């Protein structure tokens, strides 16, 4: 059994930042990621990030991954387990893992779950045709593996992922025939929408997919308009001949490990599904298990990084490590989160989180 002080599960923006801040307090960190290369979704984000300097605004996601990785690699307090899938968290506190086919156990004193989120999908006729992808999958193909997914695309979903991946498809030389969203308004940042519009790509809000066409592979997509009660309107069909359709209808937290660990979970639509109840320092209802990033509620990567720093501090502090200005650091991180969430685009997040926070004393049900 491998001992560990803090085990961090997931090496994306939240997990990397958690490792950096826990290690800074002197805590020994074991950082596990199921991929060979750490960085999570950052490694395929070729666009510049929003936020402020503290969240690396104006820097491209892939370069942020490099900055964060350089702080955990060669860090004497951080041991990285790449190609390692965490299989379970058991009631006696034992964690099971699989590294490149080798099964082993870890006994951590604290855990930070930063497993991220997965893409939701959508039911419509022939959605199983090859050529129908999640937008994130297409982004991985293009930006990580350099594979062009096809020649002409319909993007379903005008949230930030749909808009950004559409733009990146065009940068890769793929034609985007249309962006389609059932909602009457564009959900993503309007500056992203505007930069795609001036490339000549139409955005059909208040429309959804009727069906996909093709026998062996995708040959086309028919969309139709929705009325104000979200019912499709006959006769408004438009057909696009495309060989790729991307589905980008939101993310849902990858929370299986939290369920298994017995964390109290709550369904919060605004945060993408079932999310863990936690205190303001990101400790769940199970003492010693902390969360950060999309697994605790789907949000932007900027907030995931700040949550990571906070969870890292909290977990290290839980184990008795501290630093002279820990309260100052925590206050700063709380202020950053509040600022990122305080505007109109953070309204859903604020509402969602307000349903989740419990105060620290009432918190704790059991120890890991």
């Amino acid at each position: 059994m491998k001992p560990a002080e803090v085990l961090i599960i997931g090496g994306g923006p939240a997990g990397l930042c958690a490792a950096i801040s826990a290690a800074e307090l002197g805590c020994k960190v074991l950082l596990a990621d199921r991929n060979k290369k750490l960085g999570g979704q950052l490694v395929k984000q070729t666009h510049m990030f929003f936020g402020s300097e503290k969240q690396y605004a104006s820097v491209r996601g892939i370069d942020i991954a490099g900055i964060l990785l350089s702080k955990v690699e060669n860090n004497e307090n951080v041991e990285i387990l790449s190609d390692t899938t965490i299989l379970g968290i058991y009631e006696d506190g034992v964690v099971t893992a699989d590294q490149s086919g080798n099964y082993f156990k870890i006994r951590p004193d604290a855990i930070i779950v930063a497993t991220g989120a997965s893409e939701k999908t959508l039911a419509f006729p022939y959605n199983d045709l090859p050529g129908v992808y999640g937008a994130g999958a297409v982004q991985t193909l293009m930006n990580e593996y350099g594979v062009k997914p096809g020649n002409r695309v319909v993007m379903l979903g005008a949230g930030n992922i749909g808009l950004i991946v559409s733009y990146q498809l065009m940068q890769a030389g793929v034609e985007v025939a249309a962006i389609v969203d059932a909602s009457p308004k564009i959900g993503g940042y309007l500056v992203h929408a505007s930069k795609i519009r001036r490339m000549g790509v139409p955005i059909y809000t208040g429309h959804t997919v009727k069906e996909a066409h093709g026998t062996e592979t995708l040959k086309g997509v028919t969309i139709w308009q929705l009325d104000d009660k979200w019912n499709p309107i006959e006769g408004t069909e438009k057909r696009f001949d495309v060989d790729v359709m991307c589905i980008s209808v939101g993310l849902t937290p990858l929370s299986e490990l939290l369920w298994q660990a017995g964390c109290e979970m709550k369904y919060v639509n605004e945060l993408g599904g079932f999310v863990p109840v936690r205190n303001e320092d990101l400790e769940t209802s199970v003492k010693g298990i902390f969360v950060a990033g999309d697994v605790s509620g789907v949000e932007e990567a900027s907030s995931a990084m700040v949550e990571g720093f906070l969870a890292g501090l909290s977990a290290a502090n839980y184990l008795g490590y501290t630093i002279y200005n820990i309260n100052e650091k925590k206050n700063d991180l709380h202020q950053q989160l509040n600022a990122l969430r305080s505007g109109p685009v953070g309204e859903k997040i604020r509402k969602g989180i307000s349903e989740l926070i419990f105060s620290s004393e009432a918190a704790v049900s059991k120890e890991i």
Partner: protein
Amino acid sequence: MLEKTGVPAASDLENVMPSEERLNRGPVAVIECFQNIPCNPCYTACSRNAIKEFEDINDLPNIDHEACNGCSLCVSKCPGLAIMIMDMTYSEQEALIKIPYEFLPLPKENDLVKGLDREGKPVCEAKVIKVMNPKSFDKTPILSIAVKKEFAKIVRNIGMGDEDGR
């Protein structure tokens, strides 16, 4: 309009366009950012304090067009690619517009390209005057293009004449 289509309305643009008097005095930044999102790199990029400090990071950019000299430092720093420079003094007939452009191939200086509006429709000819792509721009090159003055407030992209007209 904007939140349905991604295209700002005339009334949106009125709020961010420098005065005619200012436009006629030389290069100035136009920030076409209309939504309160948590983002402030335009302020940190500005070395003339023309773009004011954000009280709340979700505020819209507040630019003093009088203090702005159109240096274009903010253009490649804006994650939304929402900032352009307009120079109505470029020549008798033409205005010079500087736009961020993140596509390959980049045009070459003196190329004649299409000037595209905010919906990507070709509206006029544009001549590429300069292509700036130094390391400090971090892969967001800035194109200087000359267009007839009447299109200066309309053109926001270029088309390289692909088969689909973009």
